[in-house]
């Protein structure tokens, strides 16, 4: 009876008054005779649901037998093995994809060094994962919501987050949309539909499921994609998210970047079994694809298909993109302490996603050495100019310490803000006030 009533409720949709009345009577019903209802409904479920497994008199311990294959269509020479699966982007589109990858690569090199010089406080490169970023981003719509981990800069660039946006955030100046409060690489932008990144790992996964459920409720033809690493998939939040998404059938794309290293911990110490993808079909009943993360066309096709499933079938999809973290974890890390240069070079040279796409373009006669040089030079100029400009900007106003904690500041915060300003008036020379916007004005009041 309860389930029938619930179904009626769902169908009622917008008829709020009726809905409220029914909900009330349902609640009362629940309160008055919980035990009867419970036994009634479970009995009914037993009748409805049939076991999907077979019974056997053969005592057999089950072990992993079949590994999920890794979908790849373009080899390192840039040759697409099944031409009908080449997404066949136009020359202009491919050039845009390639130059975005190259620009990301150039920017990473410069900003990594810039952090070493102490000009920014932190940085994380995306070396080796450029095809994942651009390939997946190109398959999404701007109305799809993104939850990211922190190594997805190319995704944001593809969606229109500019070098200036990135560098302003890294320089924590007053043009940083996050008001200088978070470490570099913690981007967030309404414009590109990217929810703000936080450092704690995997917290974004259940959030993405909630986000996609809201999209489903609103009847949108969109999905939410959530990026994470294979290390992050060890957190409890991974299980929570996968199970919620499957159970509630949400339009979520779980995009795992398996780059083989979680800081110093190799994936072989992170999990056993068939990687992250292996958990999808049997573990959660979730549609799952494993893909060569260094093959931009494979990543594109897979994400495109995942999006179609998520939006049209209103159910989640798990993607595991196999790649390699060519750079250090971050500027706080020195990976030579725990892995060999040979291992890095095997990926950096042997499976480089950027040169793979370049080889593809070469076959088409779409790219020349001169264009390569020019693109690199122009990217360098853009990054350097942006950096010089960003460094000249004021840091955000010190009043921003106290805003956005709550919708409106609490009395305690207002008092603390006053205390700080009074203190700064006593010691104006002891604090770097001249670097912060509006300091003179604030101290004058």
């Amino acid at each position, binding site marked *: 009876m309860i389930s029938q009533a619930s179904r009626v409720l769902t169908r009622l949709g917008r008829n709020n008054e009726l809905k409220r009345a029914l909900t009330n009577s349902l609640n009362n019903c629940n309160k008055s005779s919980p035990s009867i209802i419970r036994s009634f409904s479970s009995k009914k479920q037993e009748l409805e649901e049939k076991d999907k497994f077979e019974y056997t008199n053969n005592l057999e311990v089950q072990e992993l037998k079949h590994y999920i294959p890794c979908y790849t269509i373009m080899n390192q020479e840039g040759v697409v093995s099944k031409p009908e699966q080449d997404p066949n982007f136009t020359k202009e589109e491919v050039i845009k994809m390639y130059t975005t990858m190259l620009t990301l690569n150039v920017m990473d090199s410069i900003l990594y060094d810039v952090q070493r010089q102490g000009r920014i406080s932190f940085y994380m490169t995306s070396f080796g994962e450029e095809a994942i970023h651009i390939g997946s981003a190109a398959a999404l719509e701007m109305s799809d919501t993104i939850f990211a981990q922190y190594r997805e800069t190319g995704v944001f660039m593809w969606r229109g987050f500019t070098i200036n946006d990135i560098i302003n955030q890294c320089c924590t100046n007053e043009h940083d949309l996050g008001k200088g409060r978070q*470490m570099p690489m913690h981007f967030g932008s309404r414009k590109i539909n990217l929810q703000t990144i936080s450092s704690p790992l995997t917290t974004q996964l259940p959030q993405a499921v909630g986000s996609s459920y809201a999209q489903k409720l609103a009847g949108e033809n969109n999905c939410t994609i959530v990026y994470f690493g294979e290390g992050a998939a060890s957190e409890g939040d991974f299980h929570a998210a996968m199970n919620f998404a499957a159970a509630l059938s949400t339009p979520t794309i779980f995009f795992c970047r398996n780059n083989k290293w979680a800081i*110093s*911990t190799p994936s072989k110490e992170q999990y056993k079994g068939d990687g992250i993808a292996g958990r999808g079909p049997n573990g959660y009943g979730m549609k799952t694809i494993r893909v060569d993360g260094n093959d931009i066309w494979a990543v594109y096709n897979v994400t495109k298909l995942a999006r179609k499933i998520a939006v049209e079938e209103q159910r989640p999809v798990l993607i595991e993109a196999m790649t390699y973290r060519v750079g250090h974890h971050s500027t706080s890390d020195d990976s030579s302490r725990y892995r060999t240069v040979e291992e890095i070079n095997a990926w950096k040279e042997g499976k480089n996603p950027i040169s793979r796409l370049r080889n593809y373009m070469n076959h088409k006669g779409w790219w020349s050495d001169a264009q390569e040089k020019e693109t690199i030079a122009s990217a360098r100029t853009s990054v350097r100019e942006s950096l010089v400009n960003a460094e000249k900007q004021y840091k955000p106003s010190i009043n921003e310490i106290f805003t956005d904690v709550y919708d409106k500041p609490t009395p305690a915060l207002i008092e603390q803000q006053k205390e700080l300003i009074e203190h700064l008036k006593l010691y104006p020379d002891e604090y770097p006030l001249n670097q912060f916007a509006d300091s003179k004005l604030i101290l004058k009041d």
Partner: protein
Amino acid sequence: MLRGNIKKVNSLLVRSFHSSVPNKSSGPSSPIIYPSLDIENAGEKQKMNLFQAINNGMDIAMQKDSKAVIFGEDVGFGGVFRCTVGLRDKYGASRVFNTPLCEQGIAGFAIGLAAQGATPIAEIQFADYIFPAFDQIVNEAAKYRYRSGGQFNCGSLTIRSPYGAVGHGGHYHSQSPESYFGQTPGLKVVIPSTPIEAKGLLLASIREKDPVIFFEPKLMYRSAVEEVPIGDYEIPLGKARIVKEGKDITIIGWGAQMRVLLQAVNMAEEKLGISCELIDLRTIQPWDVETVVESVKKTGRVIISHEAPKTGGWAAEISATIQERCFLHLEAPIQRVCGYDTPFPLIFEKFYVPDHLKNFESIKKTIVY
């Protein structure tokens, strides 16, 4: 009498010490000579920074207790702060190992080890990331003995984690979550402030019969250097250290804040001609009420300072206890100099932290009250 004198001093000096060399507020600008704790019969000493002293303490624990194990994220290669360097080579990968990336797993796994008689020394990479383990620590570790009627316990458990401001950590590499754990009956919470004390307190924590959360001031891993005894020694938990004796005001802190407070104390003694008593609580729970009360009864004035936000921070607890026990001895309201009630803001760190100047101003205010 004292109050009158101070007021006079204050009116003479009030403008002259407000401005000096620019931008010193981020911390000690000139090297603060922080007094080293003397360990009795310590024997041979060696120069060590904080991470080396912690490493040395764990080395001794592993050597003397064959059931001791060290684990956490990235501890195998030495840990992101180098605290476990060399230990895997020395004690083998079955006793020093990486876990999958899962803090609740680390804590739960550690509890199980302890309940089964082993000595787990678990690392949570940053205190900011301890929260997925909150359930295991607060609901499980803390109540393990009590809920079993004393049949079982996980007292051999120690969870180490770097905490606090570091200059560029922002929201998620700077927090000081000690009061969340301090409020949980069944847990002990320890925060060392020097290499010598870190080693002695860590060894005591590992051997303690209750689960201990051991927060290490990451700002000081490399910067704090002392002549550390290389032998085995313990510093008892629950005992504060009077870093410097004084008679006019009591200043209480712990961890990295101790150096900031010493700087404020030096400044106050020089500029105001007063004498400050500086106390390092060292153990947050159970904290040394006796030492604090005795000091406050002597001085009649007290400031408590920590990096964590002011509201609901551990200073509030100390303040309430002092008020209960020393009410008639107090000459001025108890002051708390703490972080603001906001998340830890990256670019505003210099403004956010309770630096020596804010503490100095608070001392002045308390003295002239």
